[in-house]
């Protein structure tokens, strides 16, 4: 634990570097594309359009808590998909980050944990680009933001910690087990559907089956999603006990993930 704090303090010195690497990541990603930064807006928008058509107009789930209008459902979806894309992209990028930037680890004295941090942070910036679109839709569909929207940073913080912990873990393990990259894609799809994003946690089938409810509650991302839904979609107070426990779980994952990363650190220069 002492070592963790010492390392984190060390990391603070590298904040300028992290900042620069994030902006480099953002610049490099859209360099050469015609739309440039607009892709940060378009990607979630296109995704949402597909989900809206499929679930809002074709399948039409009947969930009174979401509201009957397909537009309302689209909004519900978007408020969940946006943070999910942040989580899943940063996980996938982290898994590859040590290998892609192998020459940094091999040739420059460079704290390797910066790489997953940059992956999570640059995707966080994308997430932030998506927020104005979400707000725009909130106004377009006649919903009003309540004062509880101010709690958004708290939910974001929980996800940030959780995402970092997860990224440390998988980025370090992928160096030794390259197939994690492939497992991860499938895992994330599974995870997506076991998190209340396309459906609501309060929907009837889930509330009826106690087991289903318990199982979903074990998924930390459930409570993160509920947090987003509460403060952005429903406009009500977040559920503090669940969110608090999730933050604790996220912190545990962070410490464990970092410990694994730290333990494997010396093997990186040879293995990446």
């Amino acid at each position: 634990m002492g070592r963790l704090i010492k390392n984190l303090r060390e990391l603070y010195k590298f904040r300028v570097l992290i900042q620069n690497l994030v902006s480099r990541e953002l610049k490099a990603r859209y360099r050469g594309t015609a739309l440039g930064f607009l892709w940060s807006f378009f990607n979630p928008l296109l995704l949402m359009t597909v989900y809206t058509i499929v679930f809002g107009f074709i399948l039409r789930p009947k969930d009174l808590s979401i509201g009957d209008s397909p537009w309302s459902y689209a909004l519900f979806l978007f408020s969940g998909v946006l943070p999910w894309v942040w989580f899943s992209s940063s996980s996938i990028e982290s898994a590859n980050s040590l290998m892609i930037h192998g020459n940094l680890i091999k040739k420059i004295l460079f704290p390797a944990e910066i790489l997953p941090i940059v992956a999570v942070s640059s995707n966080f910036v994308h997430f932030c680009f998506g927020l104005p679109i979400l707000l725009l839709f909130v106004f377009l569909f006649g919903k009003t933001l309540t004062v509880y929207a101010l709690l958004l940073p708290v939910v974001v913080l929980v996800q940030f910690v959780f995402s970092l912990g997860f990224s440390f873990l998988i980025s370090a393990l992928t160096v030794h087990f390259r197939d994690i990259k492939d497992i991860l894609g499938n895992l994330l799809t599974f995870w997506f559907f076991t998190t209340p994003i396309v459906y609501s946690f309060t929907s009837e089938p889930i509330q009826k089956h106690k087991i289903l409810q318990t199982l979903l509650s074990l998924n930390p991302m459930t409570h993160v999603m509920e947090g987003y839904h509460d403060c952005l979609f429903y406009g009500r107070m977040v559920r503090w006990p669940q969110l608090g426990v999730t933050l604790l779980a996220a912190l545990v994952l962070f410490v464990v993930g970092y410990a694994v990363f730290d333990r494997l650190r010396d093997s990186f220069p040879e293995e990446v």
Partner: protein
Amino acid sequence: MPAIELVDVTRVYQKYSARHRFQTFKSAIVKGDLFRSLRPDELVTAVSGVNIRVEKGETFGVIGENGSGKSTLLKLIAGIAKPTSGRVRTEGKISALIELGAGFHPEITGRENVFINGIMLGLSKREIVRKFDEIVRFAELEDFIDAPVKTYSSGMYMRLGFSVAINVNPEILLVDEVLAVGDAAFVPKCLDRIDDFRRRKKTILFVSHDLATVSKICDRVAWMKCGVIRMLGDPKRVVDAYLQDVAVKQEEDFQERRSETAPVLESGPEPAPGPAPELGTAAPDEGRAQRWGKREVEIRRVTLRNLRGEEKHVFHPDEGLVIEMEYAAREPVKDFVFGVGISTSLGIFCYGTNTNLEEFEPVLLSGEGKVAVRIERLNLINGTYYLDIAVHKRDGYPYDYHKNLYSFFVSSMRRDEGIARLAHTWEFSPQVKIKFPDKR
């Protein structure tokens, strides 16, 4: 207090077996040996029990063959690799020129890369802003600094990398063979900068294959072999010892290669029918080596020796060379000429002569015997040379012609250029203030 101190440093690398490589995460979990499987199967010792003390302001060279542990040593000092046992202590900011431009991102511009690379190497943003123009000017990239790095040539890439690294202005500079890739104009500039470092009493650790530069700029040199320091001390002595070791090894390599091709050269007493092309078919890879002639007189064996008569294949330019040919004449011949020719690996013909050109009159050749050409002093520059050996009639009709069948190597620390090292001396009038090189 020394700038760099290594006490009994050993670095063992982990080598994972093929089985491990294909191990999957799933199987590791299933077998429940996630961490056990991360343990290596085999260990390779890259550096073993090294003790080095480099004082502040000293320029310290490290030489050795590829794979002798030089780069690992550098990484240990830079802190990129941790010693398995022993202690590495350094005093002051380190800049490591291990790979120039490591960490450049191809998609973004040179300008942005300078900033990120500079920060990675330990500069603050303000320092980079202050030094930015200097960095770009030194790299000679004023016109391209706003183009993406992926459009750079490898030379431009390297120049920018060097320029950033050298402007970090460290207390300790680690240089790993990076100058090998620079062009003729840029390398002296880099050496100039390194010289400047020395004058300012900074510590430099210099890993290089360029022995001339090493013995010129270093105060002390360590020679590494197989992970241990074979010799440490005065540059000239260490470089000499190293060169001797290399020459012995080259000699062995030549012997080995010679014994591989020997069956081709030592053809039996029976001459091949017609202009013998069997050499070309026997060794199709050696496209340059050929042999022809009906072998009325056959050259059975060619031996290269120094003036003391020792068989040798690696020579110093100041050494002499004796080419000894053993011939066997099937029937006595009255018309014969012995000739030799030397050409470079690029096929440039350096020198050729024969008994006819030097106005020897053939009388009678019969039975077996030896002919030797004695070159008192080789006076060739560095490189591999090929030998033509021939015995033919005065009108050119070949008895036995060996083209490029034999080779030798000239190894020297001098960097003079051309084909031959013409015997010469330098003279200066007293106004020219110049230091003479140390007698080697």
